[in-house]
C-alpha cells in the first residue's frame, strides 16, 4: 500500500486537525511540493525491476503523452566503471525504461541515449564497454555522443551571473528528456544525483575546468536544458561499501529527487550547495511529498562508511591538501 509522507517545513497553524484545514493544507502542499516516489525492487529480476519502474511512475502520477515523437535518455556514465560498482546506471534499467516508453507511447518512438566525452572517458568506448551498443542493437535506438553533435549557446543566469551553456540540438529538440541518475557520494559536491548527472550533457570534454564553479555550472546546465523526468536507478549504490539497495525513485523535479537522495545517503540536503542553489534558481523544490515506501526504509539500508573508509577518505584528503599526490605516485 502506498504511504504518503510530507517532507516540508509546516507551520503549527497548518497542523491544526480540523478536517477543512487538513484539506486546505493538502491542497496548498500539493501545489507547493513535488512528488517523489520510492519503490523497492522485490527480486533482482528483469520483471521485478520493470514492475518497480512502472510503479514509481504511477506513484508520481506520471503519464506519457501519446504525441511524443522523440525521447532523449541520459544515463549516468562515469569513466568505464561497471554498473555493479554502483558508479554507472545499470544498462538493464535503461533497456527497461526503453521498453516502457515503447509500450506507453508508441513502438515507433525515436529514442536516443546521450552522453558526452569527458577528460578520461571517450563516449565511443563507454557505449561499447557499458553494453549500450548491445541495447542500441536490440532496441533499435540511437547512441549519441553530444561532443560530436550540433549545439548552440544558450544563456543561463545563476546568482545574477550570465553563464553561456552549449546545448546540443538533440536535447533541445527532444519531446521528452529522461534523466536516469545514480546516488553517489562525491567529495567535491557531497552528493551526485539528477542535477549533477546533467554534467554529462555538457559537450565540452575537459569537464574538470568547471569544477571551480561546480554548483553554478550544475544549476546553469539544468536551467539551460531542463529534463522532464528523473528515474533513479538505485539497484546498486556505490557506498562505500558497494551495496545492493534495490531502490527506484521517480520525480519530475530534479531538486526534489536530489534532496531525497541526499536524505537517503545520510547527507543533509541543506549542506549541498547545488541543491540549495537549484531551489533558489527555481529548478525545483527541496520540500517534497514522498509516495510509496518510507524513505527511512532505504536510509537505514544505505551503506555506512566503515572506520577504515573514513580513515582512507581523510588520508586522501590530507594527501591532496599537502600536495603529495606525485610523491605517492597517485598522479
Amino acid at each position, binding site marked *: 500500500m502506498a504511504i504518503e509522507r510530507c517532507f516540508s517545513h509546516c507551520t503549527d497553524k497548518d497542523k491544526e486537525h480540523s478536517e477543512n484545514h487538513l484539506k486546505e493544507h493538502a491542497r496548498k502542499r500539493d501545489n507547493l511540493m513535488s512528488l517523489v516516489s520510492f519503490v523497492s525492487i522485490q527480486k533482482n529480476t528483469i520483471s521485478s525491476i520493470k514492475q518497480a519502474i512502472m510503479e514509481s511512475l504511477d506513484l508520481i502520477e506520471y503519464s506519457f503523452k501519446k504525441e511524443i515523437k522523440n525521447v532523449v535518455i541520459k544515463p549516468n556514465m562515469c569513466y*568505464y566503471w561497471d554498473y555493479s560498482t554502483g558508479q554507472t546506471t545499470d544498462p538493464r534499467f535503461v533497456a527497461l525504461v526503453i521498453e516502457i516508453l515503447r509500450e506507453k507511447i508508441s513502438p515507433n518512438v525515436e529514442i536516443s541515449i546521450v552522453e558526452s566525452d569527458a577528460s578520461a*572517458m571517450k563516449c565511443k568506448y563507454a557505449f561499447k*564497454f557499458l553494453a549500450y551498443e548491445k541495447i542500441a542493437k536490440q532496441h533499435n535506438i540511437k547512441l549519441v555522443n553530444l561532443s560530436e553533435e550540433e549545439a548552440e549557446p544558450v544563456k543561463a543566469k545563476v546568482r545574477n551571473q550570465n553563464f553561456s551553456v552549449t546545448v546540443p540540438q538533440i536535447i533541445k529538440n527532444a519531446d521528452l528528456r529522461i534523466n536516469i541518475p545514480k546516488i553517489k557520494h562525491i567529495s567535491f559536491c557531497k552528493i551526485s544525483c539528477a542535477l549533477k548527472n546533467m554534467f554529462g550533457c555538457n559537450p565540452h570534454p575537459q569537464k574538470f575546468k568547471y569544477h571551480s564553479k561546480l554548483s553554478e555550472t550544475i544549476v546553469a546546465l539544468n536551467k539551460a536544458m531542463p529534463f522532464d523526468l528523473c528515474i533513479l536507478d538505485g539497484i546498486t549504490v556505490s557506498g562505500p561499501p558497494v551495496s545492493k539497495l534495490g531502490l527506484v525513485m521517480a520525480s519530475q523535479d530534479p531538486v526534489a529527487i536530489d534532496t531525497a537522495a541526499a536524505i537517503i545517503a545520510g547527507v543533509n540536503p541543506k549542506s549541498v550547495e547545488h541543491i540549495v542553489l537549484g531551489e533558489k534558481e527555481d529548478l525545483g523544490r527541496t520540500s517534497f511529498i514522498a509516495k510509496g515506501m518510507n524513505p527511512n526504509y532505504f536510509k537505514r539500508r544505505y551503506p555506512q562508511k566503515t572506520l577504515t573508509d573514513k580513515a582512507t577518505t581523510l588520508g586522501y*584528503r590530507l594527501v591532496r591538501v599537502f600536495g603529495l599526490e606525485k610523491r605517492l605516485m597517485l598522479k
Partner: protein
Amino acid sequence: MGKIHARNCSKLQSANLIAVADISKKALKLVKKMGVTQTFTDYHQLIKQPNIDAVLISLPTHLHAPCAISAAEEGKHVFLEKPLARNPEEGKKIISAARKNNVRLMVGYPLRFSSTLRHLKNKLDSGVLGDIQTAHAFHIGSGPFYHRIEHAIPRPVPEWWLKKELTGGALLDLGSHMINLTRWYFGEINDIKAFLGHRFNFDFEDHAICVANFTSGTTATINLGWFSQKDAIGIELFGTVTHESGYHMRPRKIITAIQLLLGRTPGFSEVYLKEVSHFIRCIKENLQPSPSGDDALKDLETIARAYKNEIRLHRSNKYGNTKH
C-alpha cells in the same frame, strides 16, 4: 611501468641510468629531476648512443619487436617487459636479433622475483607438498582501467590498450605472467585450453580461464581478468601430502605511502628492482639471464595454443556479461 623502472634504475649502485626516451615531455621532465642527463622523444636516437650498454624497454606490446630488434642491432643488451611480443613469430625475430648480435635478452616477469612465490617454489621442489596434482593460479585486476579509488581522478586509457591488433587481450597480458609462473613450477605444458570471456564487450577477451596439463602430471586452472577493482595475484597448490598457497600481495596503502615519503623502494616495486638488478648482474658476469627470451617464447607459444583451443560455453545474453 616505465616510471617505476626509471625510479628503480636511478637507485642502482651497479649501473647508471643515463638516458631515457619517451614521447611524453612530462615524463622526460620527471626523469631529468632523477638525474638523467640525456633525454629523447624518439627511441631510435637513444639506442644509437655509444655510451649506452643496455636498454630497458617498457613500451606497448606492439612496439616490443621493432624496438628490441633495433636495440639488439645496435649492440645493446635488452631487458624487455613481458610479453615478449604479440605472437611467437615476432618473438622469434627478437630472439634471433639478440643471438645474431650477441647481446643478452631478458624478459621482465616480476613474479619470478617475489620472495613469497620463490619460497613456495623451494617448498615444492623439496617435496614437502608431495606431488602437486592440481593447482589454481590467478591474476585478477582492473587491466588498463583505473580503480575506483576515492579522490583519485582517472586518466584516459591509452588507445593502444583498446585495440586488439596492438595489445592482444587479458590472456596475453596477464596469461604471460601466470603461464610463465606455472611453467617454472610444474615444467612444460602438454595441453592447454581456454575459455575467453567478454564482460566489457571488447573486441578481445577481458577475462580467461585456462586449463593446462603439465608434463609433471599437474593439472592447473589459470584464472585471468581485467574486470575487478581489487587485485589478486597468487597460486594455490594442492599436493598429495599437503596444500600450500602463495600470494603476491600489494602491501597496505599506509605502509607504501610511508615508504614512498621516506624515498624508499615501496614493497610492490621491490620485485621490479630485483629483476633489473639480476639483468645487470648477468651482463657484468656474462651469465644467461632468466627468464630468457627463449623462456618467454615458450609462454607465447603456449598462449597461442590456448587461443587456438578456445572452449566455447553456452552463455546467457545479459547486458555487460557476455559477448554472444
